[in-house]
């Protein structure tokens, strides 16, 4: 493991990833990650709007892990978040375990968003903001639409089956 650590870091670097966190995600951590990423991107002279979009996408994903990850240790929710830069765009990767029973619903939601253009996403966001949150939502039920609006490409997602009960849910958002 010790010898592999540098290889692991190099591998992330090759993929353009400059930040990665795997493990328990907490609200406090969300604020710290956000501030550090803001500092880093400001150094790179990234525009204010882009910095805020990346920041926002990391926050929405982290709060999704906190609220919805099906891998938990007591109060703590586990997941992985990575941020990178490739082909002149920042991207955010996010993953956590979900119960297999949730796959169909998540797939429906995300596929619907993939097919929408920016104007349709804006309309959907405003429509949903006026409605009560969906029954399976702990927040406002706007997180995915918000990310889709801020992304420059349709959100990519994947489910990797782990066993009879759980799959690993991954998303990639290109800003």
């Amino acid at each position: 493991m010790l010898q592999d650590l540098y290889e692991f870091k190099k591998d992330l670097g090759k993929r353009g990833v400059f930040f990665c966190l795997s493990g328990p995600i907490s609200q406090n951590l969300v604020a710290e990650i956000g501030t550090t990423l803001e500092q880093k991107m400001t150094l790179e002279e990234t525009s204010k709007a882009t910095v805020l979009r990346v920041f926002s996408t990391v926050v929405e994903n982290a709060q999704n892990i906190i609220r919805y990850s099906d891998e938990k240790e007591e109060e703590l929710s586990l997941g992985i978040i990575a941020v990178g830069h490739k082909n002149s765009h920042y991207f955010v990767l996010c993953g956590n375990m979900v119960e297999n029973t949730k796959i169909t619903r998540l797939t429906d939601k995300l596929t619907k968003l993939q097919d929408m253009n920016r104007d349709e996403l804006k309309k959907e966001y405003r429509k949903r903001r006026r409605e009560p949150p969906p029954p399976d939502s702990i927040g406002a039920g706007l997180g995915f639409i918000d990310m889709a609006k801020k992304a420059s490409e349709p959100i990519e997602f994947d489910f990797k089956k782990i066993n009879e009960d759980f799959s690993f849910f991954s998303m990639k958002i290109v800003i």
Partner: protein
Amino acid sequence: MESLMIEATKYTPEISFDCNNHVLDIKGKSYPENTSVFYQPIFEWLEEYLSSDETQEVTVNMELIYFNSSSSKVLMDFCDRLDEAAEDGKKVTANWFYEEDDEDALEFGEEFQEELESVTFNLVEKAPDNE
């Protein structure tokens, strides 16, 4: 009634609702873990304030650097309540502050402006920081 003052934290905005001068300020970032826990007392205060006959003219300043999607919904509810008060004949002016190069913040402001019918909703570009 008393004014409502809440200090900013890393993920909640500064609230300064002054019922003597009739100026309500919200300033900072908003991405609490549980939005309703943070905003419930604010809505309760607003309800009492807007229901009072002493409230005739109010200015609301919203200067939010960043808010998450569940805070966005809360802000919509907040603006709706202001719109209701304005429909009831109170004079409500809301100022939405945004930074020059933050087109998302401007777009959010424009959307709130479109959604509201009776509030005078101004979009105000902030002067650049002199840091």
